């Protein structure tokens, strides 16, 4: 039982790292970037290339994936995304679907359509007993990394000057601008960090989820669910939403395998019906 909970938490944590950047940038600029998964894919494939082709250690891949996706993010943001801030949501959706298509075809061209598999270093393989639960070492590693990241993010947002400016900008961009906060700059930085986190999530997920070119589309739905449940005003909302989603998905498939696939969608629609602003938004807004 505990093992299932543990797996669910690990899966949820991974989803959180993958999706958190999207939540914050959505809240910040009210921009729907469905192509967020493409940044995760970039990180995942970088890991594949670094490990399988260049033979580098998995541990090097994680920071590299972060940096790679972050740079990619900032370049695209400056070059393309910023032209779309004042367009309608529909335009943004179409634009980012277009980007997804391009990313999928590019990866297909460069890396082939087969799923790429990453082999973990021996130190991360195997299973250990914790509190009577039999858990995979790698999942423990994922939880540890994601947990640290979450605490780190929370710290940055709650305690630093950048964090307070970010919060102000998310709360009300117009007022923040009026106060002389460089919302555009904050956004570019947040976008980069968010993309970088997605890349890191892709790298972390590569050994579990296997990378193939349809990754951004496959996970887009999960991101949307995280946002719609968690809201976009804080990072605690998406965090709890991700954990809830991970646990519900894993437990659902474990206990009722026949209808496991339904559970997450049902949760999403139920939340949107009863709490259209998200499940965790109000509590998170104090």
């Amino acid at each position: 039982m505990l093992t299932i909970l543990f797996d669910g938490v690990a899966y949820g944590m991974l989803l959180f790292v993958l999706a958190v950047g999207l939540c914050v940038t959505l809240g910040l600029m009210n921009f729907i970037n469905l192509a967020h998964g493409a940044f995760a894919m970039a990180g995942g494939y970088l890991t594949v290339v670094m490990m399988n082709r260049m033979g580098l250690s998995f541990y090097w891949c994680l920071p590299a994936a972060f940096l790679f996706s972050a740079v990619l993010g900032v370049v695209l943001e400056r070059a393309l995304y910023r032209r779309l801030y004042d367009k309608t949501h529909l335009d943004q959706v179409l634009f980012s679907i277009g980007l997804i298509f391009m990313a999928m075809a590019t990866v297909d061209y460069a890396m082939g359509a087969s799923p790429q598999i990453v082999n973990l270093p021996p130190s991360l393989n195997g299973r250990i007993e914790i509190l009577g639960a039999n858990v995979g070492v790698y999942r423990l590693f994922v939880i540890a990394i994601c947990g640290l990241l979450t605490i780190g993010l929370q710290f940055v947002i709650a305690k630093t000057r950048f964090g307070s400016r970010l919060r102000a900008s998310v709360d009300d961009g117009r007022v923040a601008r009026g106060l002389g906060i460089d919302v555009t700059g904050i956004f570019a930085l947040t976008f980069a960090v968010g993309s970088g986190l997605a890349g890191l999530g892709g790298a972390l997920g590569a050994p579990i989820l296997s990378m193939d070119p349809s990754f951004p589309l496959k996970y887009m739905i999960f991101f949307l669910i995280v946002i719609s449940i968690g809201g976009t005003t804080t990072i605690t909302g998406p965090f709890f939403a991700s954990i809830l989603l991970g646990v519900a998905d894993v437990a659902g498939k474990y206990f009722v395998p026949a209808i496991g696939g339904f559970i997450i969608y049902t949760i999403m629609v139920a939340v949107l019906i009863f709490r259209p602003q998200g499940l965790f938004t109000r509590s998170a807004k104090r």
Partner: protein
Amino acid sequence: MIFKSILAGAVGLAAGLQFTAPALSQETVKVGLIATLTGPQAASGRQKVAGARLYMQLNGNMVAGKKIELIVKDDTGVADVTRRHAQELIVNDKVAAIAGFSLTPLALAVAPVITQSKTPAIIMTAGTSVITERSPYFVRVSFTLPQQSVPIAEWAAKNGAKTAVSLVSDYGPGIDAQNAFKMRFEEQGGKVLEQLKAPLANPEFSPFLQRAKDLKPDALFLFVPAPTAGALMKQVIDRGLTEANIKVIGTGDITDDDQLNGIGDSVLGLITSHFYSAAHGSALNQKFVAEFKKANPGMRPNFIGVGGWDGMHAFYEALKKTSGDTDGTKLVDAMKGATWESPRGMMTIDPETRDVIQDVYIRKVEKKDGELYNIEFDVVKQVKDPMHK
């Protein structure tokens, strides 16, 4: 302004059509190959096309005085596109036969078209038993899931497994495999504790695997479509099922030759049953593997690639037998009962069911020359699909 757009559309349509406009020639016999070249199943499509092209490259494109032309179409894995391509290939390109079909629904979608037009359709991949019953013009050179699952069920029962759990992808072939496995395993005195089905588009197998693990069976039988197998095997290893003394077995799909090296050493020793291994010892297979690798750098032929090869072979031989007559019914009749040596070993088209009869091997994953291979160590000769009555 709308008129202009119509004009533009019409001109564009015409421009688009030039590329596929039928260029009829009496000397040419066309074969339509409908493969999935984009989307999640793209890897299988490329194997198939590579196998078919390789056959033509090594055996020339002249058969019975006719030039064979292969027309490749991408169905993107969507059934109505498969159907439209089939219909257009038959009606416009006047192909003598169509071939391909990476998934069962894609094959089933063309059944009414080939029956109506009396066009042979050679199934190179899809593996649900029922397909060949849906039209008298289906001929299968690949395999059926029950055909692959029954031998491993027997092997498992013989090797001391009393209980088993099966985990398959939730679609036609998976259910076929699961049922055939259960049937034979229980005939041999075993007990299948639970039949688990994971959604076809499922990235996370861990809850299903955990459930299988918690049921503590002697054996876990797995089947998923080839491109997903890598991810599943990773999670099987990661979940520590082997350490829990559960014997992981399955059909060869999960140790797909194309991906085996990517999965890594952790699958060493895994036992599967399948009709093809790139390590098959015959001279023909060694030549096939070598040429395939030469023509497609970075790829290693798998059972789908060999299906592409044999599909072309079946057509070549049938056309020879009819002396170049491309009448669909005659071609299908010519294929019935045909026997030949494939890179996989000897195979026959069952004259009754038009389904493939072939040897099924029990193999173990081993390392050879620094690469992982499925090494065959036992064989069940000339297996018929057990589901056909």
